[in-house]
């Protein structure tokens, strides 16, 4: 009947100091938990997407069901645009993107675009020309030898990169369709497909994205139809499979994921010009002397480090300055 009171070994008895420190432990716990919660909330709301130090994953795993990415050779006009500035890392080029069709957050575009399928892909080139043609992507890749060209890329937001693009002069493609003399401008259109470009569901811009060039700008050898960078197929976040690169103009002129090119007689509408006519002009030539109404264009932040002075026509004044001889560049911004 007499139950034994279990004997508690003396070593298991709580030390008086520990007992008295219960308050300290609770408070330390509260503090630690609150810091963890704040840190967690910060990560949840302001998570910077980790950039892989090595190659971008999306690029190498692009579905290439038909045809491989053709070999890339040196540029035939290498001396026209040779620059000695260090190239921006592939990690930065693929994780700092303005591509509103996927996200308005530059750090998030890579993730949002990772599953973007770009094969099969066709691009129709028509309008005022003798031979309107719809090209398959592989035909475009074989149309002329691919060249690597290292261009400066200056965003209208006052940051810049140096990017080794792969592709060839847009003129090579345009010549195939034999433009008529009545063709004065070239109009470009991005894919419109909210199922593949999820942010097209939000009307942050008027979709599809459209851009345009004057005929002489489009035919200039520096103007490039790019299908890759760093010798690999164009990563989705950078405008796969085909994009425009016009190195002396602000980045938004470089329309991405092009499905249609049209030769036209009148100046075509362009997306950012429609969104903010007094801030984004049709020409959008890089010009340190003409400020964006809200910020200075005199200097730029080079991604990868350093603030530097912005150059007239992004450093390509010798090659393209004559295109704008006699033009008021303040009025035609």
């Amino acid at each position: 009947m007499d139950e034994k009171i279990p004997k508690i070994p003396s070593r298991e008895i709580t030390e008086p100091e520990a007992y008295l420190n219960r308050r300290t432990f609770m408070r330390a716990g509260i503090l630690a938990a609150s810091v963890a919660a704040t840190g967690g909330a910060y990560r949840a709301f302001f998570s910077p997407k980790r950039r892989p130090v090595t190659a971008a994953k999306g690029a190498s795993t692009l579905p290439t069901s038909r045809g491989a990415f053709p070999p890339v050779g040196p540029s035939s006009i290498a001396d026209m645009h040779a620059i000695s500035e260090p190239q921006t890392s592939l990690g930065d080029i693929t994780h700092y993107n303005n591509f509103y069709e996927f996200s308005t957050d530059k750090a998030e575009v890579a993730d949002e675009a990772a599953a973007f399928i770009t094969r099969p892909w066709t691009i129709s080139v028509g309008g005022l020309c003798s031979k309107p043609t719809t090209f398959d992507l592989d035909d475009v890749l074989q149309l002329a030898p691919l060249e690597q060209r290292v261009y400066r890329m200056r965003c209208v937001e006052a940051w810049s990169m140096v990017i080794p693009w792969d592709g060839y002069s847009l003129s090579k493609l345009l010549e195939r369709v034999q433009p008529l003399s009545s063709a004065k401008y070239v109009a470009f259109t991005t894919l419109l497909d909210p199922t593949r470009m999820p942010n097209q569901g939000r009307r942050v811009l008027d979709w599809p994205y459209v851009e345009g060039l004057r005929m002489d700008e489009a035919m200039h050898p520096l103007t490039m139809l790019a299908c890759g960078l760093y010798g690999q197929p164009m990563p989705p976040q950078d405008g796969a499979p085909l994009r425009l690169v016009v190195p002396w103009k602000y980045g938004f002129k470089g329309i991405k994921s092009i499905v249609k090119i049209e030769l036209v007689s009148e100046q075509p509408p362009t997306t950012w010009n429609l969104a903010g006519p007094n801030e984004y002009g049709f020409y959008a030539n890089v010009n340190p002397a003409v400020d964006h109404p809200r910020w200075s264009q005199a200097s730029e932040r080079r991604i990868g480090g350093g603030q530097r002075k912005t150059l007239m026509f992004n450093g390509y004044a010798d090659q393209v300055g004559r295109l704008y001889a006699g033009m008021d560049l303040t009025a035609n911004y």
Partner: protein
Amino acid sequence: MFETMKDTQFAKLVVFINASVPAAMIAWDAFGGASADPVGYALQRTGKFALILLLLSLCVTPLRKLTGKNYFSHFRKMLGLFAFFYACLHLLIYFVFDRQLNVSSLIEETLKRKFILFGMAALLMMVPLAITSTNASIKRLGAARWKTLHKLAYLSAIAGVAHYWISVKKDIRQPLLFAIALTILFACRLYYSRPQPKRPVAAA
């Protein structure tokens, strides 16, 4: 070390540490290469936290009125000072990295750009508030005058949200959130300061 602290002292410590956490994480991310544009990243984040803390400090009075408890007043000063701290960091980063320590270009840009002017105004309005944040100042100025002066916090918040709004290129969702929060706080303020029905006063 905690057991000797009073509860409010400890609560203040918790607020202090937690308000410092974002600064530490911003620095960690910026220096650790988490963003391709660490300067832009640090600029945006410090600006955002200046606004968040300023709005949190403006929540104190409505919370006090709502709950009838004075408890939250303990944190108002600290939240306000942290807002000032983040705003100063924000300006410092802009001055050092974007303006390359060039004072004349800082002044020139401030006068030329509406959004920088708004931001600078928001920060300058915080200066007298930070200086007079001590209890001694309340005594020296008198509670009524001190209260009037500290209504500047609202003007500063308006200027700060305007600064954010105008600086955004196209996607205004986030500045809109701040504007809505600020509007709600204003509505609370107006609601609580509405003319009270007068008690019947004995005829003279």
